[in-house]
């Protein structure tokens, strides 16, 4: 579990592209909606396992979602 700021990511963008709500993404990855919301806001850095799970659901690579170079 990491609690420091997670910086920017594109979880929200790709989640919306996948037409998923925060609650749906949370359910599919086995976490709470609060966790997804805080990852999207950059308040929380997910573990490698959760990040991979999110990327799998969004059908994106880790670099696309959490990489340093994002749109």
């Amino acid at each position, binding site marked *: 579990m990491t609690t*420091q700021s997670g910086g920017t990511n594109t979880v929200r963008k790709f989640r919306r592209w996948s037409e998923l*709500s*925060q609650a749906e993404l949370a359910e599919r990855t086995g976490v709470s909606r609060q966790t997804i*919301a805080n990852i999207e806001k950059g308040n929380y*850095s997910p573990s490698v396992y959760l990040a991979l799970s999110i990327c799998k659901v969004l059908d994106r690579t880790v670099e696309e979602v959490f990489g340093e170079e994002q749109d």
Partner: protein
Amino acid sequence: MSYNDKILARYDASMDDEFEREMLYRSIAISYTWAIWLLYIAFAVLAWVLPGVYAILVILPIAALIIAMATGDSWLRKRAPYPRLNGYSKLEQCLMVLISLAVIAGVIWNLSSIMDRDFSIGGAIGALAGIAASAFILKYLTTHQRRKDRERLDAQLDED
């Protein structure tokens, strides 16, 4: 920056990376649990060794512990729901009840010489009822609180 933020910044800065930081916070959870057990025992000892009316002063450290726990809970509940109460063994539950009984018995025994007997008995019955009730409803209350917190926090989220 609030004092709570300063505490967290100080703890974060005391470690070099996220693994060390996680281990630190886990060790604090262990320390916290031990501190509570040892404080409970200290309350019981104080309730018996403080003479006469001074036994009532055991309320001071109990109040300090309650305020400290409430401060942490308040910080947590702005960010995540209240933790569920589980994982306590029968032995731990029995110990908690026994220590609580020892605290109450100590205070009442010390006050019995200066208090009306009926008042002492009434106080003892009230305290016992409180312990029994809390043992039964605490799990329900924390589960209920957790659900309410989750609903409140979800309602505060930005548009989905």
